[in-house]
């Protein structure tokens, strides 16, 4: 009796033990089920990586305040400031005056973090490429695409936060180089030379792409393509003052794709703006602002995606919505015949920015909505790079032919379309003016940096601005104005790095010295 009872008992123990342990073992599989089919996914396929890079919203904007404010294209002066000081943030003033005291602590700077976010995305793709399923062709395209994103971001960061890359500057502080998604790894700023070595290595990988820009009749410029990568290569080598390489890549890009927007037929006005100025005074009136159609849509991306000239989709972004042109920039245009002036320079745009009582009139440079303008490689930019390189190589006639191709799409037809030049220097001067007319704000900072560091002393630019003194918190409008300058070899060609980076790295990331 007794023994039987124990046997029953022990078999029940065994059964429950079996039940519990089998539950435990099969559990790993049970718990492997992903919590969601759409969120918090581990990357497993090339389709997922493609989806990551298809999301142009993660990549196309560059909130580069240095490009927006720190050049002679920016027209901020005391007269405009006095018209309505509240229009301008302290950061706007500080970037305009090449500040080195307060900018780092501004806390509003998102360009640095934004570009490193793009770099994280690129590193994520590169890290997962070997682990995911998908065709070799897909993987090759993704690899080139990710390298382009990384090269592009390091290049644009270097153009902003590092001194121009010259023989003398190659040991100056570069950028912390992240080539993996891990938070560990060296955060120190290596010598500038290392940054450029990485950019060139990444560019070489990106150039291996075989994906054409136009697929099925659509220019897929939000992804890397043979024309897009070559467009970036042309920009890169131009910034390095390597004219023969820049010319070769611009030519290759144009050989693949050279569709242009003809301002005579494709450009038109969009929805008017209506502003009442001097309300409550005898001068009260309603003013109509004429905007290009590209201004109409802020969120809807139709017009931006459809802009025919993009080789690779990147835009400069302005958080305060006013690309404020300087008088010098305005004077460069043929006001009667240049359609860029007609459409992109919106007269009385200052009213839209609130300078209405008392009214103060100044134009604004408007491209896409109020805040964005193309900064990635475009057909227009390729023509300008080509023309400039041809001129610098003393191929004057070819250079003029190239630049006039662009002008034909931008000017009313007439004798004024074709530039003529008395010689190489004159041709170069006119081509550089054309470049500034076509690409204000977006390329000017980079251009000044390279002009001041090439063999040609004629194109050098010294920047200066007369403005009020200022403190951390206020523009001191009651004090005497003074002249701020950015001399040719100023160390301020490297903008201050956000203070938060220095703090959160415990000082491993070092600030620029001035």
């Amino acid at each position, binding site marked *: 009796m007794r023994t039987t009872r124990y046997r029953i008992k022990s078999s029940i123990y065994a059964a429950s033990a079996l039940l519990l342990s089998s539950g435990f073992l099969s559990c790993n599989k049970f718990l492997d089920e992903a*919590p969601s089919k759409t969120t918090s996914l581990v990357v497993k396929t090339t389709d997922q990586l493609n989806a990551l890079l298809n999301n142009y919203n993660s990549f196309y904007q560059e909130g580069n305040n240095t490009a927006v404010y720190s050049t002679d294209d920016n027209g901020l002066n005391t007269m405009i400031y006095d018209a309505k000081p509240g229009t301008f943030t302290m950061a706007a003033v500080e970037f305009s005056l090449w500040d080195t005291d307060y900018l780092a602590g501004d806390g509003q700077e998102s360009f640095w973090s934004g570009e490193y976010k793009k770099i994280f995305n690129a590193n994520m793709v590169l890290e997962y490429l070997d682990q995911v399923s998908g065709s070799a062709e897909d993987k090759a395209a993704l690899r080139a695409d990710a390298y382009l994103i990384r090269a592009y971001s390091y290049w644009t960061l270097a153009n902003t936060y590092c001194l121009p890359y010259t023989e003398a500057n190659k040991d100056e502080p570069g950028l912390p180089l992240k080539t993996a998604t891990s*938070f560990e790894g060296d955060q120190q700023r290596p010598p500038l030379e290392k940054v450029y070595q990485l950019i060139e290595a990444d560019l070489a990988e990106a150039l291996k792409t075989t994906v054409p820009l136009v697929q099925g009749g659509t220019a897929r410029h939000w992804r890397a393509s043979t024309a897009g990568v070559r467009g970036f290569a042309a920009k890169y080598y131009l910034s390095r003052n390597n004219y023969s390489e820049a010319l070769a890549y611009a030519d290759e890009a144009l050989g693949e794709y050279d569709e242009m927007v003809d301002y005579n037929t494709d450009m038109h006005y969009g929805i008017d703006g209506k502003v009442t100025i001097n309300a409550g005074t005898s001068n009260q009136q309603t003013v109509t602002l004429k905007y290009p159609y590209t201004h109409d849509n802020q969120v809807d991306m139709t017009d931006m995606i459809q802009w025919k000239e993009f080789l690779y989709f990147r835009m400069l972004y302005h958080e305060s919505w006013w690309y404020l042109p300087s008088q010098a920039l305005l004077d460069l245009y043929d006001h009667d015949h240049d359609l860029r002036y007609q459409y992109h320079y919106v007269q009385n745009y200052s009213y839209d920015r609130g300078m209405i009582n008392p009214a103060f009139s100044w134009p604004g440079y408007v491209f896409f909505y109020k805040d964005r303008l193309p900064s990635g490689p475009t057909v227009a930019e390729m023509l300008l790079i080509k023309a400039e390189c041809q001129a610098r190589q003393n191929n004057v006639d070819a250079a003029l032919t190239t630049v006039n191709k662009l002008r034909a799409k931008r000017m009313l037809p007439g004798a004024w379309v074709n530039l003529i030049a008395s010689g190489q220097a004159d041709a170069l001067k006119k081509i550089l003016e054309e470049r500034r007319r076509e690409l204000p704000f977006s390329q000017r900072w980079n251009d000044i940096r390279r002009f001041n560091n090439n063999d040609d002393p004629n194109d050098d630019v010294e920047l200066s601005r007369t403005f009020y003194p200022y403190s951390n918190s206020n523009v001191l409008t009651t004090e005497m104005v003074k002249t701020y300058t950015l001399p040719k070899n100023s160390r301020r060609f490297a903008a201050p790095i956000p203070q938060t980076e220095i703090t959160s790295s415990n000082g491993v990331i070092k600030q620029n010295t001035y």
Partner: protein
Amino acid sequence: MPLPCSNIQKQLFNTNNRNLYNENTYYVRNKVNTSSTWDKTTNTVTPNLNKGSILDQNRTEVHAWNFRNQASFNRLLGKDHEINAVAGMEVDNLVTEKFTNPTSYGYNDKTLTVGTFPNGPGGAYAPIKDWQGYNETFSYTNVFTYTTQRYFSLYGNAAYTYLNKYTLSGSLRTDASNLITDDPSYRYSPFWSLGGSWQLRKEKFMDRVAWLDQLTVRFTYGYNGNVDPTTAFRPLISTAANPNTYTHDYTASISSYGNPTLRWEKTGSINFGFDYSLLGGKFFGKVDLYSKQGKDLIAQISIPAINGTTSQKLNNAEMSNKGIELELGTHIPIRGNDITWQGSVNFSYNKNKITNLFVAKYEAYSLTDGGTAAYVEGYDANSSWMFQYAGVHDGQPMIKGPGDNMFDFTAWTTGDGREFMLNMGTKVAPYTLGFINSFKIYDFDFSFILTGKFGHVFNRMSFNYPVLWGSRLLPNSKLAEVINGDPASIVPLPQNENEPRYYFWDRFYPYLSYLSENASHIRMQEVYLGYHLPMKKIKALGTSNVQVFLQGNDLFTVLFNDAGEDPEYPMGTINPAPKFTLGVKVGF
């Protein structure tokens, strides 16, 4: 004998939402009109939607099942040995599916016909414009979501008692879920505890203490873990269910930046206590002393943006919680069963401290924002860090900085916040009190419940220093104290005609030490007065028990701060108002 017990449960929930907008509603007319293209030169209007009703539908399905197994074992071995054990497992599976239909335009509820997009749904390759000339697009695809939650638990407890007096117990438990990880073993949380108790009163030598009915001494040591399911070892992505409207590509974005150093939060706790009962059950209660030591706790740490993100949860904090909990109850018949008094008092005290955490530097805003980013070694985890107001200088309100420095409100402070900010105390009450009394006096019942929290601080409402760029200026009720106040002791209105960074002030004015107040308070939660109708006299009603009662809830709160603000219900929220209930309870 082990007693196995199994239980399977399956559940299904369905939710259907249907929104039908009739053709004649403003919503439909407005939608159809404003979505039409209006060519202002020819003055022709082209509709982009059909007339008719607009129908939105979505459906949610939840499938859940649950499987439980438990076996218990209780056995006396001879007279002196007793074993009690329980072991079990539980598995849960919960799947939620959501189906959202695209909006049906031009729908007819009688004929069930639907409209089309006469000019297509818009987008980059066939754009359509609304009446004002802006591009528009219509969504025309279904949206699906599918989530799965799975849980698995395995547990066991065992206790051995000798001579009915000495007990040794232990428990083991693991809880796992389908969180994302490279290492499956990471999913299983470790919990275990060991304990012992001694029924002291049962010892012979205690027999002399006749007034003591019961005395049990307890001791446990335990260990448990916690995992943060919102972070993962690896970077993760989220995909959009619909293709991009403009490019028709599928898109995804990074949803988690990954954290290869992630591990379990671990807490070890020691608990010592005793239960007692005196004087034939007139007084009873318990006392517990505990100490909990947490390590590898997750704290939000700022990291350089070069990592793709500016903050990350890292397992590097250690925290201790030490405290005491007291409970005393009474049950005293004052006059037989006619007049009785039952009362109980709970009191607890907890001291929290971050015992180890290296953070090189604290930005002031991390400290004011609170949360795990404001953990500071040597301080309570819920410390209230405030700026010290220093008056107006050069037209700018200022706070005290390190040494003789001051900061104005127009930029982030520099340096380490700990050097110049004040720690006003903890935001979580270290002392809590609960007091319940009920009296029975013949046919009357009277009871009340009081609760109290003490020893912590809160920030009273500040003036809101509204900015001017909105359409309306809405100052709050604290305007008077700012206008009548001394600018040397309270932040005044802006002193300059133009204050370009006035919008930045909100990083400072809500965090000034003068706003910090004592958060202690006592609440009268409930008062109850009941009267039992004398049943003998109303037997005719056929009821056995009728009670008339008056009950009051949230009657009053005693505050200990000068501002007169309830610390748990900030101004602008709804305070608990006194509620009275008059009622009759009838039992048959």
